[in-house]
């Protein structure tokens, strides 16, 4: 069964369906959270919150507003970004050290066969963006910076960053080719 169908069952309190849903989405949820949060212990904590929230709020999934997968990963991304921003605001040293130890984007993620090829394609497509498009998209999505922070970091006007983000995502879509 697909995530969309499973979510409907989960909304009805079906624990077995939740186990199936867990099997489908726990890898993407955990991987994404770890990518944004970096710190392993915190990543696990956030992933746990997200997965439990899927159970609690499954009834809020609205198929009219996108796929179940988008809903799940949007939720995971938002929670991860919240965590990384509050950690940043608190100037948490540990996290910064973990980030440094883990190196720049792309390098620290262990090679896993299943996601490997998809990762390769996404990377290839990211490479085809202009540097500003790529940085605007990845600083926001993978590193959890707001577009104002991105503008500051790249010394660009706000309007330019918004445009680069949209153009970057659109170009990514074209490169990935009707697959989504």
């Amino acid at each position: 069964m697909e995530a969309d169908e499973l979510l409907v069952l989960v909304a009805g309190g079906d624990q077995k369906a939740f186990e199936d849903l867990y099997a489908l989405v726990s890898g993407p949820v955990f991987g994404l959270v770890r990518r944004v949060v970096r710190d392993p212990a915190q990543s696990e904590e956030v992933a746990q919150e997200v997965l439990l929230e899927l159970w609690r709020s499954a009834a809020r999934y609205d198929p009219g507003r996108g796929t179940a997968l988008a809903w799940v990963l949007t939720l995971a991304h938002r929670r991860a970004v919240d965590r990384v921003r509050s950690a940043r605001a608190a100037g948490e040293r540990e996290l910064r050290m973990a980030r440094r130890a883990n190196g720049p984007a792309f390098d620290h993620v262990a090679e896993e066969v299943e996601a490997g090829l998809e990762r390769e394609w996404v990377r290839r497509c990211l490479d085809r963006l202009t540097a500003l498009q790529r940085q605007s998209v990845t600083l926001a999505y993978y590193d959890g910076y707001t577009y104002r922070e991105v503008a500051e970091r790249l010394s660009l006007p706000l309007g330019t960053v918004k445009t680069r983000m949209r153009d970057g995502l659109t170009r990514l879509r074209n490169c990935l080719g009707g697959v989504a």
Partner: protein
Amino acid sequence: MTSIFRRGELHSLAAPYALDALEPKEHKRFEKHLGRCEDCAAEVRALREDAVRLAWSTAAPAPAALRDRVLTAVRNTPQDPAPAAEPRERARAERPPSRARRSSFSPFLIPLASTTAAAALVVAALFGVQASRTQDRLDQERAQAREITHVLAAPDARAVTGRDAKGRGLGVVASASQRAAVVTGAGLGSPADDRVHQLWLMRPEGKPRSLGLLDGDTPLIATGLNPDATSLAVTVEPSGGSPQPTTAPVVQLALESLGFGE
């Protein structure tokens, strides 16, 4: 005048919103705007799916302990009630039109890398599909069946099936010693009119190698497989196929558990 200008500015927040890159205040304002502006709602929907691709490529196995903790918590956590506003959406979700067809591929709904037990299921699926074929097709497939039997008879023949979260996948029976595999697609649907599904052998060194076109659930026999092959991938290509993939794979399957990639 100011209000028009502000509205215009709001429209431009769709991309940062889809990337969760708005400050809390803007975020709230834009969500309000989304309820009123269909253009932005549609744009966000599309951009979100793009972001999902970025997310999907970071997938990593979650620690086993996490599963235990989550499932235990689930047993002890009450659920929030459904929001009252969307009864129509729920009803639609319960009867999605295209699902029945997909569920017929249930033999393939096996976790990636389950081996011998899956072989029987793959074979059942391979031969089960012949019931509705014409005589021509059957003759053709009987010849294929001999090839398939040949692959299956190899002492090192193993099966693997995998599917992604959207129910698309591949079933493979392969023999590393024979360097041959029987491959069937599952849940791929039919590509657009002038498009085909093309199967590729992916290698760490060197370009992807075309193994032919996948036609519905007809098994494809691939021979002369390179021992260093790491995975199979299916892409959507212009009719007739392409010399090299021109789009990202719709499905992929690791060959590691089948004795390849060494």
